[in-house]
């Protein structure tokens, strides 16, 4: 620290304060990133091929059943995902946060595992598990009950709107669960104790005290799940399209098939954007008005309800949900990756053939891996630098318009991946920047999409650092920028590291934006898998899925190691 301050003092006379130009660049960059795609979406949706003003696309959207039906499907399936997530996550998060349930650590790790599992990967696995006649689960079910496929109804049929709801639920559940568990832990148990002391039964306390306290979190959890489900592309494309069911995202994708109907695609995208923005606003209102801060300071230790004889049976919902989101999918992917012919029994069929094909013969593997890593590293590095600077400038209120900075950085949360891709396509297939067909356009998509996550992570860390330390550095003559680099950054090192890893993990699994922006030279692992799906090449898909999971878990472990060392 001493050396730092010394050097800062030394450089006082000759250094120019770069804060102002730097923040100007940040504002311009952010505006271009976020506003340009939205601008072109709006313009394109309002003009016909001859560039004349038209409302024709919106009219078609409202009257053509080919557009109305997907919209309705999107709304009801997202609501179903939201409701089922709440129904499962509310009791389960209470069990983990507020009771003496055994194996909590393991449960949290498994929830984390389902959290980082890309939903489209889960959908692949569930095709193999829940295909109505040949799916592994249905085969077991038929065998167990002595039934015959085609004659009896299957146990599950993933090729349906409900199949899509189920799989989306499995991989949205962890968001809602984590959200609620954190919320419940923050509720001080004194109020519940008071209720108990006054003679209320456990049920009465739960219903009249805990539930109202948790209400904002529940509502917000529902909205998070609704949003997540509404913006997914992979799961509906894999499970609903084969059943002839379209949702908004798959509709936009099909409008992009050659020759692309850009006006319609833009007009279909904007309502999705509007609904997302509205829901987020609603969530902010709900959370803002009835935040936990109202309740009082963080409690010293939540009172844990004793489950008594129910300790073990209470694990049942966890076994069910995590079994369906982790154990069964990972199991079926392993089984598929290590057999020669996946339509035959396991015995005598074990082989490394699929791995040999993917890593020695399949000429897309190397290119796709390389692209995926280049994009992940570039987006994570650029994103981390950008959100750190922006977070610092806006949280310390250093520049005029700091509020706009924060708003811009979090705005992309309201832009679904596929909508962002339409906007980027419209913005960068025209001069001055012709980026279509390069990795740059996909890089921009990832950078924009991950800004909010990164910003929130960095903002949380920055809030924890007291400005006095920075003030000291400033008194010794260091510029703002120097202070940020030499004083603040080291203090929020863990937060910045976490930001980098979050953006990286988010980028390497991205499908919904990439699917519209890739070309043969710029394929990633995720779109390569999507291509293989159309020809039912499940062996290579399973190998690539396991590879992607291995990379993701390695990154999570690396983050853990890097931040742990600092703590001790």
């Amino acid at each position: 620290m001493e050396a730092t301050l010394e050097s800062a003092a030394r450089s006082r006379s000759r250094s120019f304060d770069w804060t102002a130009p730097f923040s100007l660049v940040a504002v311009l960059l952010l505006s271009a990133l976020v506003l340009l795609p939205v601008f072109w979406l709006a313009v394109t949706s309002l003009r016909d091929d001859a560039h004349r003003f038209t409302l024709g696309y919106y009219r078609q959207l409202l009257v053509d059943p080919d557009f109305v039906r997907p919209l309705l499907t999107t709304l009801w399936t997202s609501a179903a995902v939201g409701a089922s997530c709440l129904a499962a996550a509310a009791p389960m998060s209470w069990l983990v946060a507020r009771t003496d349930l055994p194996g909590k650590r393991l449960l949290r790790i498994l929830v984390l595992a389902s959290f980082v599992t890309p939903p489209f990967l889960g959908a692949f696995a569930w095709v193999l598990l829940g295909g109505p006649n040949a799916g592994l689960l249905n085969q077991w079910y038929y065998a167990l009950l002595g039934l015959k496929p085609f004659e009896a109804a299957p146990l599950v049929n993933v090729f349906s709107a409900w199949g899509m709801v189920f799989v989306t639920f499995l991989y949205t559940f962890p968001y809602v669960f984590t959200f609620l568990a954190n919320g419940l832990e923050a509720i001080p148990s004194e109020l519940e104790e008071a209720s108990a002391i006054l003679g209320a039964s456990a049920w009465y306390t739960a219903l009249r005290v805990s539930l109202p306290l948790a209400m904002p979190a529940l509502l917000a959890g529902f909205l998070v799940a609704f949003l997540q489900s509404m913006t997914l592309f992979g799961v509906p494309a894999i499970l609903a399209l084969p059943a002839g069911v379209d949702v908004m995202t798959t509709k936009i994708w099909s409008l992009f098939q050659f020759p692309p109907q850009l006006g319609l695609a833009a007009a279909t995208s904007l309502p999705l954007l509007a609904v997302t923005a509205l829901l987020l606003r609603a969530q902010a209102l709900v959370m803002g008005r009835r935040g936990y801060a109202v309740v009082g300071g963080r409690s010293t230790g939540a009172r844990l309800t004793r489950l008594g004889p129910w300790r073990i049976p209470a694990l049942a919902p966890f076994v069910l949900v995590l079994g369906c989101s982790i154990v069964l999918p990972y199991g079926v992917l392993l089984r598929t990756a290590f057999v020669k012919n996946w339509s035959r029994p396991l015995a005598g069929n074990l082989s490394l053939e699929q791995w040999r094909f993917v890593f020695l013969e399949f000429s897309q593997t190397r290119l796709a891996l390389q692209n995926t890593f280049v994009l992940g590293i570039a987006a994570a590095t650029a994103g981390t630098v950008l959100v750190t600077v922006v977070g610092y400038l806006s949280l310390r209120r250093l520049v005029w318009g700091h509020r706009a900075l924060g708003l811009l950085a979090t705005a992309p949360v309201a832009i679904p991946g596929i909508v962002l891709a339409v906007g980027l396509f419209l913005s960068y297939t025209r001069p001055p920047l012709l980026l279509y067909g390069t990795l740059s356009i996909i890089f921009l998509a990832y950078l924009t999409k991950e800004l909010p996550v990164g910003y929130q992570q960095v903002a949380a860390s920055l809030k924890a650092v007291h400005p006095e330390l920075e003030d000291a550095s400033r008194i010794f003559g260091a510029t703002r920028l120097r202070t940020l680099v030499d004083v603040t950054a080291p203090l929020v090192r863990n937060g910045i590291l976490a930001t980098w890893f979050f953006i990286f993990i988010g980028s390497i699994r991205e499908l919904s934006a990439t699917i519209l922006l890739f070309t043969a030279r710029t394929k990633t692992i995720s779109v390569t898998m999507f291509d293989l799906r159309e020809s039912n090449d499940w062996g290579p898909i399973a190998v690539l899925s396991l590879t992607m999971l291995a990379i993701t878990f390695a990154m999570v472990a690396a983050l853990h190691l890097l931040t742990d060392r600092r703590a001790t």
Partner: protein
Amino acid sequence: MIPIRFPLPFALACALGLASPAAGQETTPELLAAARKEGKVVWYNSVDVKVAEGVAKAFRAAYPGIEVEVERSGSERVFQRINQEHQAGIRNADVVNSSDASHFLFWKQQKWLAPHVPPDVKRFPPASRDPEGYYATWRATLSVMGCNTRLVPAKDAPTGYRDLLDPKWKGKLVKSHPSYSGTSLTGTYALTRALGWGYLEALAKQDVQQLQSTTATPKSLATGERAVMVDGNEYNMFMEIDAGSPVRILYAREGTPLVASPTAIFADAPHPSAARVFQNFLYTVAVQQFLVDAGGLRSVHPDVKERPGRTPLSQIKILPDDPAGMLPHVAEIKQRYTAIFGH
């Protein structure tokens, strides 16, 4: 359609000595050296990915120092990608293979192709090559019906397309999509001409599992996800049979659509020399025989031998393809089909 062998412009060009590429179309040491300098060839195709990579592997072994990049998707998807890339000014593809032969008519009209006649192609039957030397049939297959032998005993197997309208097949059928697959498109065109659109409308009421690729339907059949396949690649069925999967090919009594898949070189190929070396390689007896033996495909190369045990083409009632007749109807077929069956 009567094949016109030497249309006037081409004959004229030959007479004037303008068709200069025709002179140097063999893989000469000079061409090979130029190809090595380019270092790689990018091949867009629609053949089963394992067959494609098998060919690429053989090429790397035959011509070390020239890498092959395989970009596989459904023919119609390949067509979309190439057109979209072309529109955006991206030149990535060198050589292209598609099971929708009308694509080659379109690209030729657009003047996107380069004329090139590999030595072996000179001996191909005239109906299998473009008279002006822009493309030739690289592989052929049939769009066949099939069944899972565990689920459908031989005596119950359908013998033709009309049998599939029987209520007993409801919920048991699987089918590919003409908006994705060129084989499916070619087959759909042949089928609608033989049986009419009314047939497909009736078929759609049978609760058909709609997949994308004609390489996917045989795989679905093999797992037992569906009992009967409406259309799929004959070559994938042969490969499944070789792998021990419980499937059988059914040649419909109404006839089976034949699908010829040409390849061609793009005029603005980024690796023009490597593209020519590769194109020559694709039509050699060795590769053509590999397609037949390991890939289950049909070849029009005069020196290639059919594998014993497979029904020879001469004994199958064929519904011939007609790319020129289909070309003006492509968009309409896709639209109408999607309206009936969904995506």
